């Protein structure tokens, strides 16, 4: 069948199925199971109202359970197993983990991931805050923000191509077509550099791509937070003779600290999962491996499900503190 036809059928079946399920289940509940008439009308209405929320929640709970909750446990289980020929599994305890920790490529991925986790959220948040503050009272500020926000819409793969062109190096005797090398030579560099192949520093050239994308996100949220600051606090500071920097660091920042933390953690999660950029630009060569790409390598290139799952569990482990913190905050809010 032609995929387009299949797609249209899926939309019709999916949407129709959902609507039909919700409508039909409600109808069934109200008319057949617990009809709101007859001798037990009152009791029936109450019973129907106890069941109804679960009717509304059922598809979502099934999908969430199957596609997000179950895999966490399945992956945990797989990380303790070794796949044997013929779809058999053997329990190997922590062997996948010990093997993985012994691999230099894994330690490299860990080191790089930690670097990413330190640099990207900090740089994106700081730059986003800077732009948000600078454009706050600018007449054309919204245009500037639009442009800095734009990379949000660009795929990691698209961004990888964009920055590959920026980093492109050509032999010394012909024209440079990568802007970075062009500027490097212009400002006294000796010879064109293959930026992505310089160990250690190439990590930063990859991080720039993610920072470029995430700064807009940080800016949008922090800009809204800055606008939410009560004018009186700033005015009072001006009256007291505070200079602009004091106002920014001592008055504004403390008031939006909560938002800064939210932005920081959100970008941290995005950074932890970074895959496409490394996959498309270096594929982990020249010591640029990161956990997500390492895991993909193990799962689908080396076909080692045990070690791949162990790597995935490491990512999960790193996310867990933020998960707990988020849940804690959400519960506090609801009280």
């Amino acid at each position, binding site marked *: 069948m032609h995929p*387009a036809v299949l797609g249209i059928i899926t939309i019709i079946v999916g949407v129709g199925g959902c609507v039909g399920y919700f409508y039909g289940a*409600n109808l069934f509940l109200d008319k057949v199971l617990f009809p709101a008439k007859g001798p037990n009308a009152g009791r029936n209405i109450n019973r129907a109202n106890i069941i109804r929320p*679960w009717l509304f929640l059922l598809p979502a709970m099934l999908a969430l359970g199957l*596609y997000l909750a179950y895999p966490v446990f399945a*992956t945990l289980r797989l990380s303790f197993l070794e796949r044997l020929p013929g779809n058999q599994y053997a329990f190997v305890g922590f062997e996948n983990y010990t093997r993985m920790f012994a691999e230099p490529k894994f330690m490299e991925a860990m080191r790089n991931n930690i670097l990413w986790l330190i640099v990207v959220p900090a740089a994106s948040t700081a730059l986003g805050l800077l732009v948000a503050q600078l454009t706050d009272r600018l007449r054309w500020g919204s245009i*500037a923000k639009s442009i800095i926000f*734009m990379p949000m819409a660009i795929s990691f*793969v698209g961004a990888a191509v964009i920055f590959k062109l920026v980093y492109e190096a050509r032999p010394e005797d*012909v024209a440079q077509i990568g802007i970075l090398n062009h500027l490097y030579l212009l400002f006294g560099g000796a010879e064109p550099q293959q930026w992505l192949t310089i160990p250690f520093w190439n990590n930063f050239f990859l991080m720039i791509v993610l920072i470029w994308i995430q700064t807009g996100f940080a800016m949008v949220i922090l800009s809204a937070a800055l606008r939410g600051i009560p004018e009186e606090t*700033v005015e009072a500071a001006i009256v007291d003779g505070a200079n602009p920097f004091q106002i920014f660091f001592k008055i504004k920042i403390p008031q939006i600290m909560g938002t800064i933390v939210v932005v920081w953690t959100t970008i941290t999660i995005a950074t932890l999962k970074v895959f496409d950029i490394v996959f498309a630009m270096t594929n982990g060569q020249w010591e640029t491996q990161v956990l997500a790409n390492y895991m993909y390598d193990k799962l689908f290139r080396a076909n080692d499900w045990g070690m791949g799952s162990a790597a995935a569990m490491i990512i999960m482990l790193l996310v867990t503190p933020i998960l707990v913190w988020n849940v804690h905050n959400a519960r506090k809010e609801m009280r």
Partner: protein
Amino acid sequence: MDGLSGQKPAVVWALNISVIALVLLWIFPTLGLFVSSFRTGDQITASGWWSAMFPAEQTLQFRAIDPDDNRIETDAGVFVVEGNVFDGGDALTIDSWGTSSRALDAYQIGDTADLGDGETLILNTDGSYIWQGDDEQISGRGQRLFINATVPPDFTLDNYSFVLFDEDNSEGMAKAFFNTLTVVIPATIIPILIAAFAAYALAWMDFPGRALLIAAVVGLLVVPLQLALIPLLSLHNAIGIGKGYLGVWLAHTGFGLPLAIYLLRNYMVGLPRDIIENARVDGATEFQIFTKIILPLSFPALASFAIFQFLWTWNDLLVALVFLIDSSGQTTVMTKQIVELLGTRGGDWEILATSAFVSIAVPLIVFFAMQRYLVRGLLAGSVK
């Protein structure tokens, strides 16, 4: 009022200039790719894209016309071929020229190139040449000519027609574009519907365990989808879906749901309580309240999530790699196609830039058209 943008003109100037610098820094990389997608491969390698607006020096390769058909015997044993390298095209300003790829700029205009054993070639300003030699020399294939000329700025749409519409181009983007669209539309619509009902239940219905479920959704929000790859692929294989559109639709639905439920619930909770209570008092069923009141009022939140999910599924690589693309390559999506091109056509920037821009263009249009909703959604999702 504001701390940094005081009344002093110098400060205002500094502020404007630094924002301009930041904006330029942010737009420059994308602009480079955009400009490159309208240049030919020769132009891209000859000069940086930033000089595309100005004339540039390029080395062009020509071959003299077929000597066997066009040669004229002027004297006994002396054959001559005359022609013009710019035949049928615009004349360019020639700076220097050569006859071998090892010495591209060996000669000036008016020089006579000595090709050995009395064979000669003369090139004039207007591009006309005279190639002279004996019977054996002036035969076979035409003499090669390398001309260094100043080429005026020139933009072309050929890359786009090649990448999108050329039937013979096996690496074209047309099919991948279509496949991406096929993935994206159901994967955007279905989670919205499922999430809207769940969000309503979590926002406005009272039942035991509600707080726990909301906490679970918040928790699932950050679970890396990397964990889901192998268990779900095995599951899909076990129940016979295998790799394909159905699998990728289901996967995107599952992965998109936490954010959808979270965003929609946050929005619905903020709707005025009176409307809903009044409707209940008037005897409306929950289903009616949902479809007639909540859904229309929640349009901004629905639009925000729709944009998120659209951008995310359109730009996704990992989920498509794992759940959709099989070895036949028939179901490849644009992101995968571009990664493939980065491997096989790493130096052909005209193809790479154009292909990348084809995939970037649609999200950019959506972004600029619906930025308001996107910002609103971001704020609802992060700031509480």
